[in-house]
C-alpha cells in the first residue's frame, strides 16, 4: 500500500460524499413530487409514456398490485429480450453478421440457453455475460435488447427501494406508490440527464461512439489484429449509473475504449455509487430525520472502506511465491507497482484496481477494470464476500437501500429488545410479519448461493453431455484446487447478488451453467424483492410511534456499529465455512508456496 494509493481512495470518498445530498434531493423532487428542471422538455415524454403503456399514473397501488405490475413488466421485457437475441441474425444493425451464415469464425452462437441466461441477466440488473459482447452481439442487440434493460432494470430497483422508504415514511395507509410512475420518472429525470452529460464527458476522455464495422490492422510484427468498434460511450454511463456492469467489450472497463484514463475511471467509480449513496439521504429526508439516512450511509461506508483496505493490503503485498523467485516486490517506483499486478491495467495500478473491485462488488455493478480471478486469495475474497453480504453496501439502485433497511429491521429486532421495548425503526414497530419478510429476504439469498454452488460442486455429468459438454461440472473451472471452488462459488454468488462480475476462469457458456445461473439471477432478484414489497406493504399501514428517550436511537454510532456487526454475523458468517474451503485455504497454501 502507498500513500499515493490512499490519497486516490480518499479523493474518491470525498467526491462521493459531496454528491450525496444534492443527488438525494433531486431524487425526492423528481420521484415524490414530480418536479424537475427538465419538466418542460421531458414532461410531455412522461405523459406519452403513460399513454403508451395505458396506465393511470396518479392511481396509488397497494403492495400486491405493485408487485404484480413489477413482475409483469419484468416478464414481458425478459421475453422481449429473449426474442430479440434469438432473432438478431435477421434484424438490422448487424455489420459483423453474428448469428448468420456470414458470422466470423470467432463468433459465439446465440443458443437458447445463452439467450435465456442473457435475458435473465439483463432483466435482473445482473449483467452476467457468459459470452464476449464483441464476438456475440449485434449492435442492435447491444443497443436495444441490452441497453434497454440497463435503463429499466435500474429503474425497477429504484422503484422497489422507494416503496420500502415509503413504507417507513407514510403512515396508516395501504398504498406504496405507483410502479409505472416510479420507473418512468426514474428513467426520465434521473438516469437520462446524468447519462447524457456524463457520456459527453467520456467521449471527451476518449471513449468511442460509432457504428463502424470492426477495424482490421496489421501490427508491427505483421500479425492481423481485429479492433472492435461500436456505440460505446452511450452505453458506458448507464452501465455504471444503473449498476448494471455489462461491458460492451469482454474486457469491460479494463478496455481502453471503455475506460481510457484515470479521470474516466474516477467518473465511472462515482457513477456506480452515486445513486445508492444518494438514496440514503432520500430515505432520511422522507422519514423526516436525515440523521437516519446518514447512519445508514455510515454503516455502508465502514463496510466499504474495510473492504478496500483488506483488498488493497493483500494486492499490495503481492504473491510471496513470486518474491521467492527473486523478483523484487518492494520497489514502488511507479506509485503502486510491486504488488500483485497480474490481471491489472498498468494505467490504473493496484489502488485503483482494488478500489474498483471493491466498489463494483459492494454495489451490484459487476463492471471490472481488472480481473478478479487473478487477485490474491484474500484480495479476491473481498469482492466475493461483498457480494455474499447481500449487495447492500451501497448495492444496486434501490436494491442496496432496501437490503440495508432489511438488515436495519433485523438489527433493531435482535438488539433493540435490549432497551426493554418492542423494537421500532424510524417510528414503525417491528412485529411478526416484518421479521418474517426480513428473514425471507435473507434466506432467499443464502439459499440460492449455497444450493446452486453445492449442486455445481458435486453434480457429475459425462463428457460431451449436451447439458455440459466439458464433462463433470467441476471440471469447467479453469483452475485446480481451492481456486476452482472459488470460481464456482463466485459465479453463483454473483448471479444471486445480481452483480455480474466473475472469477472468469470458469467456462460458463454451457447449458448447465447458463440455466442454473439464470435461475439464480431470477431468484436473487425477484424472490428477494417480493418480501421487500410485502414488508413495505405491512409497514405503510402502521402508525408512527413518536420517539422518546426510551426509544432505541437508530441515528447514533452505536446503531451503526451494531448494524455492521449484524450484517457481518448474520450475512457473512453463513458463508464463512464455504469461504474457508475457497480463498482462505488458498491463502494459507500460497503462504506455503502452493499456487493454483
Amino acid at each position, binding site marked *: 500500500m502507498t500513500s499515493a494509493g490512499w490519497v486516490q481512495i480518499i479523493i474518491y470518498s470525498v467526491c462521493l460524499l459531496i454528491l450525496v445530498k444534492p443527488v438525494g434531493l433531486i431524487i425526492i423532487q423528481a420521484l415524490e413530487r414530480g418536479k424537475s428542471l427538465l419538466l418542460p422538455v421531458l414532461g410531455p415524454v412522461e405523459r406519452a409514456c403513460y399513454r403508451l403503456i395505458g396506465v393511470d399514473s396518479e392511481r396509488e397501488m397497494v403492495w400486491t398490485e405493485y408487485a404484480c405490475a413489477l413482475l409483469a413488466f419484468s416478464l414481458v421485457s425478459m421475453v422481449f429480450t429473449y426474442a430479440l437475441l434469438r432473432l438478431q441474425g435477421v434484424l438490422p444493425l448487424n455489420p459483423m453478421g453474428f448469428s448468420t451464415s456470414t458470422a466470423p469464425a470467432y463468433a459465439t452462437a446465440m443458443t437458447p440457453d445463452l439467450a435465456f441466461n442473457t435475458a435473465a441477466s439483463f432483466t435482473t440488473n445482473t449483467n452476467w455475460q457468459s459470452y464476449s459482447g464483441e464476438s456475440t452481439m449485434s449492435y442492435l442487440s447491444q443497443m436495444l435488447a441490452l441497453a434497454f434493460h440497463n435503463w429499466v432494470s435500474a429503474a425497477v430497483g429504484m422503484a422497489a427501494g422507494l416503496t420500502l422508504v415509503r413504507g417507513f415514511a407514510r403512515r396508516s395507509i395501504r398504498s406504496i406508490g405507483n410502479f409505472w410512475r416510479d420507473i418512468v420518472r426514474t428513467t426520465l429525470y434521473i438516469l437520462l440527464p446524468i447519462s447524457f452529460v456524463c457520456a459527453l464527458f467520456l467521449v471527451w476522455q476518449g471513449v468511442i461512439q460509432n457504428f463502424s464495422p470492426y477495424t482490421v490492422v496489421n501490427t508491427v510484427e505483421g500479425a492481423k489484429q481485429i479492433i472492435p468498434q461500436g456505440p460505446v460511450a452511450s452505453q458506458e454511463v448507464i452501465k455504471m449509473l444503473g449498476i448494471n456492469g455489462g461491458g460492451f467489450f469482454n474486457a469491460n472497463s479494463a478496455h481502453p475504449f471503455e475506460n481510457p484514463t484515470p479521470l474516466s475511471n474516477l467518473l465511472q467509480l462515482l457513477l456506480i455509487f452515486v445513486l445508492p449513496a444518494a438514496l440514503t439521504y432520500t430515505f432520511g429526508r422522507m422519514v423526516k430525520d436525515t440523521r437516519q439516512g446518514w447512519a445508514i450511509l455510515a454503516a455502508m461506508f465502514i463496510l466499504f472502506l474495510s473492504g478496500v483496505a483488506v483488498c488493497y493490503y493483500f494486492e499490495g503485498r503481492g504473491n510471496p511465491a513470486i518474491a521467492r523467485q527473486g523478483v523484487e516486490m518492494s520497489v514502488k517506483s511507479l506509485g503502486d507497482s510491486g504488488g500483485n499486478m497480474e490481471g491489472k491495467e498498468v494505467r490504473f495500478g493496484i489502488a485503483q484496481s482494488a478500489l474498483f473491485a471493491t466498489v463494483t462488488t459492494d454495489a451490484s455493478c459487476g463492471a471490472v477494470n481488472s480481473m478478479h480471478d487473478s487477485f490474491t486469495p484474500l484480495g479476491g475474497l473481498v469482492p466475493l464476500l461483498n457480494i455474499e453480504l447481500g449487495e447492500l453496501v451501497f448495492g444496486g439502485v434501490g436494491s442496496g437501500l432496501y437490503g440495508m433497511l432489511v438488515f436495519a429491521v433485523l438489527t433493531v429486532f435482535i438488539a433493540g429488545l435490549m432497551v426493554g421495548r*418492542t423494537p421500532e425503526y424510524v417510528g414503525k414497530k417491528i412485529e411478526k410479519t416484518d*421479521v418474517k419478510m426480513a428473514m425471507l429476504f435473507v434466506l432467499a439469498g443464502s439459499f440460492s448461493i449455497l444450493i446452486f454452488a453445492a449442486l455445481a460442486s458435486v453434480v457429475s455429468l459425462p463428457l460431451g453431455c449436451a447439458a455440459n459438454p466439458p464433462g463433470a461440472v467441476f471440471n469447467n473451472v479453469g483452475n485446480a484446487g481451492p481456486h476452482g471452488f472459488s470460481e464456482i462459488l463466485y459465479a453463483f454468488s454473483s448471479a444471486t447478488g445480481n452483480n455480474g462480475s466473475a472469477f472468469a476462469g470458469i467456462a460458463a457458456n454451457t447449458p448447465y451453467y447458463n440455466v442454473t445461473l439464470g435461475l439464480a439471477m431470477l431468484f436473487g432478484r425477484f424472490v428477494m424483492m417480493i418480501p421487500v414489497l410485502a414488508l413495505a406493504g405491512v409497514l405503510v399501514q402502521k402508525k408512527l410511534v413518536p420517539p422518546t428517550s426510551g426509544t432505541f436511537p437508530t441515528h447514533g454510532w452505536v446503531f451503526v456499529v451494531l448494524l455492521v456487526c449484524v450484517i457481518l*454475523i448474520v450475512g457473512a458468517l453463513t458463508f464463512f*465455512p464455504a469461504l474457508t474451503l475457497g480463498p482462505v*485455504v488458498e491463502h494459507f497454501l500460497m503462504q506455503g508456496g502452493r499456487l493454483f
Partner: protein
Amino acid sequence: MADDLSLVPVPQRKKIPLFQRSIVKRALVDSFVKLNPVVMAGNPVMMVVEIGSAVTTVLFIAHLLAGNTGKVLLFEGQITLWLWFTVLFANFAESIAEGRGKAQADTLRRSRKATMACLEVGKDRFETVPATVLKKGDIVRVAAGEVIPSDGDVVEGVATVDESAITGESAPVIRESGGDRSAVTGGTTVLSDWLRIEISVQQGETFMDRMIALVEGATRQKTPNEIALNILLAGLTVIFLLAVATLLPFSIYAVRASGQGQPTDMFSLISLLVCLIPTTIGALLSAIGIAGMDRVLQHNILAMSGKAIEAAGDVDTLLLDKTGTITLGNRQAVEFIPAPGVSAKELADAAQLSSLADETPEGRSIVTLAKQQGLRERQLGSFDAEFISFSALTRMSGVNLNGQVIRKGASDVIFQFVRNLGMPVAPETEKEVIRIAQKGGTPLVVADNKRGTLGVVYLKDVVKGGMRERFEQLRAMGIRTVMITGDNPLTAAAIASEAGVDDFLSEATPETKMQLIRKEQTGGRLVAMTGDGTNDAPALAAADVGLAMNTGTQAAKEAGNMIDLDSNPTKLIEVVQIGKQLLMTRGALTTFSIANDVAKYFAILPAMFGALYAMPASQHGPLWALNIMRLHSAHSAILAAVIFNAVIIVALIPLALRGVSYRPMSAEALLKRNLIFYGLGGLFIPFPGIWLIDQIIVVLGLAPVC
C-alpha cells in the same frame, strides 16, 4: 380438578426460591416428558437439535453394531450424549420456570375443601347445597366464619372479610352492598356479620379458577414479541442449516481437488449445526416468558396474559390517579396563618378546639399540627363543650364552649358567618385564602364570635415520599406520566408540579379519561392506567395495560388485563419495569446467542477441514491455522464446542428466570450497557470457555491429544 371442591383460605404466599428441591425434582422428570416431538414442534430451534440427536444416535448404534471401537466411536458416543443433553437442558429450563407456577397452583389446590352454600330458594327459605351447583344469578347468604362459595356481588349487608387466600394480606377488608366495595371473591372468609350475595360467575370461571390456571401456565399463549422472535430464530436456523448442509458437497469437492482427507462426517456436521443455530435463546425463550409472568405474580399482581406484561414494557404514557397513587389520599394541615391581630398560638388553639371531635383525617391532622406547635393535647371530656359536626347544610363544623362559638369551614361560608356577626373580614386573610388555593391547597378558615376571623389553616394534598424521583426515572425511560384528578385545574396544576408529573387531567370524568386514552393511542402511544370503580371499566378496557385493583368492582376487574391483589396503584410502575426487564432479557440472550457463533466457527471449522491439503511431512493441513484457541485435536475441539453450547444453557437458567438486572435509564445508556455485557460478552466468553473444556476433556482422556 375435582368439581365438588371449593376453597378455603391459604396462608400468605411465600416467596419460592429459584431452585427448590421439589421443583427441581419435578422439572427433571418433565425434561424427559417434553422430549415428545409433538411438544417439541413448538420450538423449531430445539426441534432441529432433537432431530440431530436422533440421527447421531442411529448412526452411533449402527457403528456400534458394525463392531467399530476405538477413539472414533468414543467421540461419536460423546457427541450423541451431549446433543441429547442440549435438548434436555432446554426442557429443564422450561420445566423449572413452569414448576414455580405449578407449585403455587398446587398450594392453592391442596387447600381446597368442600364448601356448602346457603342458597336462597324463596323468601326467607334457604337450602344447603354444594358450592359447585351454584349458577350465575343465584343468591346465597354467608354468615360470619363461613367461606364465600363463589365470586359475586353483595346485594345486602356489611361485613369484614378475610381475603388472604387471594391477596396474601391478612388484614380484613370491608365488603358492603352498593358502591365500589361490593365484589366478593370465592374462597375468602367472612369474619364478622353476614352478607347476601348474588353469584356473578359460572362455576369453573371463578377468580380462583382463573388464578390457578394462570399461575400454572395452563392458558399460556405465546406473546406477539415471542412469536416474532421465534420467526427470527427459525429463520436463522434454516440459514445455518443451509450453510452446514452444503458443506458436505463443498467438502466432497475439496477432497477431490486436494486428493486428500475425507469428506466431513455427519457427527461433525450435526455438531456444527447445533453450535451455530441459536440454541441458547431457543432453549430459554419460553422460560423467560413464564418467569416474567411469575415475577409479576411475586409482586402480587395477576396478569391475565403474557401479552399484557409485554405491552407494559412498551408503555409510553402512564395515567395515574392523584388520590392514593400520587398523594397520600387525605389532605393534611401544614400551616396556621393567623389573621392580623391574632397570635399564631390563639389560632392554633381555636383550630384545635374546633377539631377535637372531628374524626376526619383533615380534622385529626389539625389536632396533630397544633400539638406540634406546642399545644398540649386536650381530652374531649375535660371540659363542657358542645361539638358541632359538619353538615351539608351549614358546611361548617366547630364547637360551642363557655359562650365562645368557634367555627371552621370553607372560606365563603366562614366569611359569611363573620359578616353576619357584624364584623369585617381582614383583606389580608382574604389574600391568604386565594394564595393557598393558587398553590393547590385547601384553605380552611377559622373564626369565633368574639374576634371574628382568626386565621386560615392550610390544608395540603401531601405527595407520597419518593414520587418525584420515580417520575424522574420514568422520564429517563421515556415514559410520560399524566395525573388524573377531579380537582379544579388550579389545584391540579399545583400538585402536578409538586409531584413532578409531566401532565395532568383535571376535573376528570370517565368520558374525559377515555378521550385522553384515545388521543394518546391515536398518536401511536401505549397507555397504562389503574382503576377500581365501575365507571373506570371502559377506560381500563381501552388502555393497553389496565391494572385493576382487587378491592374494585367486578366490572373493573374484568375490564383490566391485570389485577393488583394488594390494591396498590403505585405498583403500575413496577409492572412497567417488569415488562421492560422481560423484553431486555430476551434481547440480551438473543444477542449473546448469536455472538457466540464466532468462537464456535474457530473451534469446529479447523477440526473439520484441518486435514485438507496437508503436505506429506506435516500432520495438519493449512486450515489448522484457524485453530486460534490451540485446541488439542479435531475430536476434542468439536466436543468442547458442543459441551460449551449445552452447558451455557444451564449456566444461563438463573439469568433467564430472574431477568437481566435493570435500572431505569435512557434507552441509549441501557443499550450501551447491555451491548457490552451481552454483545461483547457473547463474542469473547466462548473462547476461554471452549479452551477450558478442551483442557478438561484431554485431562480426562475423553479425546485424543492430537
